[in-house]
């Protein structure tokens, strides 16, 4: 896996603000890239290897100009001739079990060549998806993948490939990007690939939603094709040269804006929301909703098949109620029972429930915050100060390498005090280093630990350059008391993972603000959340038997956020009691575990969450990296999850490819998700007034362009394309200085000066 490095400044001089600016730029690129991966939602990069020399089937050849719908093309034996890459149809079967969705994607691909083919698919998954099953059907062979250690799986696959056996391998490229490789697909065969993944349902305020990346087909087939695509025989990524024979390759190839894509997709969503359903709707497709059960529906596409030209989104809301809606799901796997419970706070009641708050704002005014970040942080803080009521108490701490506390203790938010704080904030300027621990400790110090009348909150605004994370964690873990810590990463958050953990330890939230443009909107959302702490002091207890519960620390439930907790127990029985405070009203709910609804993938959700816990304890250094990895490996193997350390591999034991026939790979490019502005992403080809050509065929070009797009903050992702090849490795920073150059030039100039002063008068005198 590649990592990308911040580009280095040309100057080595150490003014803090250019450094900070550079870091923010880097962070913006990184964030754009992250957004892009999510936004990429449907990009499937299919790389199919065809032995070009064997692909002689005349009928399979097409010219790009012959294509009336999007398709992948493989290079044929003759220049300018292509074979259509495997692409048939896709079926999505989604089962929503409360907070999780299990998606079964069946794609039928045809190898239209008469050569042996290796296919490689790279596909993104929604958010925290975990691929746990892959089945391959080639002809009449059904191959179910097995989970193995990553290296072991790779070896098995490579061995099978060499032996002419059909094999398949699923690997995790990044937590949200996976690769499928399929070796030895026979000539003319149709291959079914079924991937199954588990992912949490997205929840935003009262709205639950799921998104399916729907990219089987190219979304962009360029308009006039005026250049010839020449595929590299080895690497497979072609370059587009200005066509020497423009007349032979005839335009046009269709633009999706003009001709509807024809790749059919069918979708079925079995919605078992776990609560009384309000509205069920899709903003992207026309849907048909069946079922009268108050918590379950079956959703299908209104038309039987729809073109795969955009992602599918389905959203549903709960019918509003006065009490928290609690969902309970169970699954029995391998002799253990798994339970997931989730608590949705009641809507509506929260507004009146406003408990007075004691809020400490900590604002980072170190040099790295200079520029727009500081302005936005100040504006956000001013906004927050405005929302305080006289019943609230507050204080403001600013820090760089020094810190300053406005009031020595929190004070009532009287108009005078608020005005004083606003003036204090307005005066802040960004300079100095970043010493985050003293202000954190000061904010955590609670002189009134037993004051139940107020909710104590710490809002920590920073650009996220946390250096001494361990001390931060220690301070939070030992000092959090009743305080809740809300981390707000502004501008740059290179340490977003650690910020997340800090917020988790502090039972608050982490608001990540990627670009300065977002600051205002995100801060408003955050403060809306802060003002309505719906359920606090959560506890969960099982009446019978020991349960392996995750997460270990239950967070507060804020407006729009569900509590999702999972547990493994020997036998589901007894009751689960969840208690907490709604405002200052104690609230408990007792769930009869016997009544838990059966749900798919509960064990996977538990395992996935446990893996997160293992990563946390690794971060907290409660366990060493090896122990954490061992734990992750154990969970992954047990629950068949594809992770950083494990892959899925399937091998058909019968050798099929004759010993003489060769198998080569040629990567076939992929296409942009719908909604991406083709021109914006790839731009016009220089020297070609007719615009761009087959997009994915130009990998290197696309890459640089994508990076530029990402740098501009557009939600485009360099992720899948910017990986030149698995072997390219980590980027290395610039490690040359111009010191020698400057020394030489400087000395030369001094010599020249001396020469001017001495040599010329000397010559004159001689004359």
């Amino acid at each position: 896996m590649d990592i990308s490095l911040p580009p280095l400044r040309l100057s080595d001089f150490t003014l803090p603000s250019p450094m900070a600016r550079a870091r923010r730029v880097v962070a913006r690129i990184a964030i754009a890239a992250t957004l892009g991966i999510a936004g990429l939602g449907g990009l499937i990069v299919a790389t199919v290897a065809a032995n070009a020399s064997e692909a002689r089937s005349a009928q399979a050849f097409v010219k790009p100009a012959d294509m009336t719908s999007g398709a992948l093309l493989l290079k044929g034996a003759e220049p300018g001739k292509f074979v259509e890459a495997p692409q048939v149809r896709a079926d999505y079967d989604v089962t929503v079990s409360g907070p999780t969705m299990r998606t079964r994607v069946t794609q039928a691909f045809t190898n239209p060549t008469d050569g042996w083919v290796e296919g490689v698919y790279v596909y993104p998954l929604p958010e925290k998806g975990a691929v746990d099953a892959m089945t391959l059907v080639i002809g009449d062979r059904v191959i179910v993948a097995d989970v193995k250690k990553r290296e072991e799986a790779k070896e098995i696959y490579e061995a099978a490939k060499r032996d002419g056996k059909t094999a398949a391998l699923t690997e995790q490229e990044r937590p949200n990007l996976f690769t499928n490789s399929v070796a030895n697909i026979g000539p003319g065969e149709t291959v079914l690939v079924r991937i199954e993944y588990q992912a949490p349902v997205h929840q935003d305020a009262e709205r639950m939603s799921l998104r399916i990346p729907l990219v089987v087909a190219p979304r962009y087939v360029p308009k006039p094709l005026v250049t010839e695509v020449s595929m590299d025989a080895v690497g497979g990524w072609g370059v587009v040269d200005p066509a020497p024979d423009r007349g032979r390759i005839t335009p046009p190839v269709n633009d999706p804006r003009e001709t509807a894509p024809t790749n059919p997709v069918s979708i079925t969503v079995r919605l078992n929301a776990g609560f009384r359903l309000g509205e069920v709707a899709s903003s992207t497709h026309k849907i048909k909703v069946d079922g009268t059960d108050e918590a379950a529906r079956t959703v299908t596409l209104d038309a039987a098949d729809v073109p795969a030209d955009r992602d599918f989104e389905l959203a549903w809301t709960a019918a509003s109620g006065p009490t928290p809606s609690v969902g309970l799901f169970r699954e029995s796997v391998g002799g253990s029972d798994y339970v997931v419970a989730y608590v949705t706070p009641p809507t509506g009641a929260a507004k009146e429930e406003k408990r007075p708050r004691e809020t400490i704002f900590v604002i980072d005014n170190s040099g790295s915050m200079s520029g727009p970040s500081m302005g936005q942080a100040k504006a956000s803080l001013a906004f927050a100060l405005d929302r305080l009521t006289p019943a609230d108490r507050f204080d403001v701490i600013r820090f760089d390498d020094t810190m300053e506390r406005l009031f020595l203790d929190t004070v009532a938010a009287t108009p005078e005090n608020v005005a004083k704080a606003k003036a204090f904030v307005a005066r802040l300027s960004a300079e100095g280093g970043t010493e985050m621990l003293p202000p954190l400790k000061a904010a955590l110090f609670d002189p009134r630990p037993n004051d139940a009348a107020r909710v104590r909150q710490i809002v920590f605004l920073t650009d996220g350059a946390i250096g001494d994370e361990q001390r931060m964690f220690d301070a939070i873990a030992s000092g959090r008391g009743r305080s809740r810590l809300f981390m707000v990463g502004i501008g740059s958050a290179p340490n977003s993972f650690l910020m997340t953990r800090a917020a988790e330890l502090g039972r608050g939230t982490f608001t990540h603000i990627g670009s300065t443009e977002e600051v205002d909107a995100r801060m408003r959302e955050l403060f809306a959340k802060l003002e309505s702490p719906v359920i606090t002091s959560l506890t969960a207890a099982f009446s019978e038997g020991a349960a392996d519960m995750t997460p270990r620390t239950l967070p507060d439930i804020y407006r729009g956020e569900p509590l999702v907790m999972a547990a493994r127990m020997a036998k589901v029985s007894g009751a689960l009691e969840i208690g907490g405070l709604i405002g200052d009203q104690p609230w408990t709910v007792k769930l009869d575990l016997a009544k838990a609804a059966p749900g798919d993938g509960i064990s996977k959700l538990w395992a996935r969450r446990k893996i997160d816990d293992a990563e946390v304890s690794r971060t907290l250094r409660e366990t060493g990296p090896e122990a954490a990895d061992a734990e992750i490996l154990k969970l992954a193997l047990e629950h068949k999850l594809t992770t950083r350390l494990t892959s899925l591999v399937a091998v058909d034991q019968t050798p099929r490819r004759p010993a003489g026939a060769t198998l080569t790979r040629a990567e076939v490019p992929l296409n942009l998700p719908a909604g991406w502005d083709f021109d914006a992403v790839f731009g016009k080809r220089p020297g070609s007034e007719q615009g761009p050509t087959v997009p994915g065929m130009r990998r290197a070009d696309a890459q640089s362009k994508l990076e530029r797009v990402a740098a501009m903050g557009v939600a485009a992702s360099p992720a899948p394309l910017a990986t030149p090849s698995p072997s390219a490795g980590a980027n290395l920073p610039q490690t040359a200085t111009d010191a020698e150059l400057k020394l030489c030039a400087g000395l030369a100039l001094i010599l020249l000066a001396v020469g001017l002063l001495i040599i010329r008068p000397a010559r004159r005198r001689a004359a």
Partner: protein
Amino acid sequence: MSASRSLVLSPDAGGRIAQRVPLRAAFAAVFALAGLILAGQGAYVHAKAILAQILLERAFATSLATGAPTKAWAWADTWPVARIEVPRIGASEIALAGASGEALAFGPGHLDGTPEAGEPGVAIYAAHRDTHFAFLKEVRVGDEIRVLRRDGRAARFRVEETRVAAWNASGLDPHAAGRRLALVTCWPFDAVTRGPLRYVVEASAIEESGGASPR
């Protein structure tokens, strides 16, 4: 350097050419000043690199003693994470967290996203070819590299390969199997301009009882 001073330096100049001396002197002064500034900047890079290492050495010692990250100076954006030593040639440098331009001015940088030396994967450290990693050109296959980490653990590596690679095609996968170390710097060593090539020294851990061992 002033015009009058240059007149003093040229006592033989007659009255006729006295008019022209200040002009020449002015040019000389401008060149000399520019030269001093440039040379000063060049020297500053080296001075900073050397001075910083002294401060970093102290901070690292504190870090080892307390177990907590310690900044060498209050406004630093980074902190020492390891000491890299090549005993055969007597090289020793304190490496900093992150390989930003900022960090690299003061010492070798430990690339973000790569494991700590001695942990599974490839730990990558980068530094300037003309300062902290100038010694890399003397490192040979078979040399031992010692890395003492901030947490007091030490790891020993044996150089297996030195090679030149493009900055964006290093072939270094931080998550590769094994416990490996890569020291990288710009290449060629004696060039005065920046370039895309990097010199990579790759080493793998000398297996003791389970990799990194307490000091």
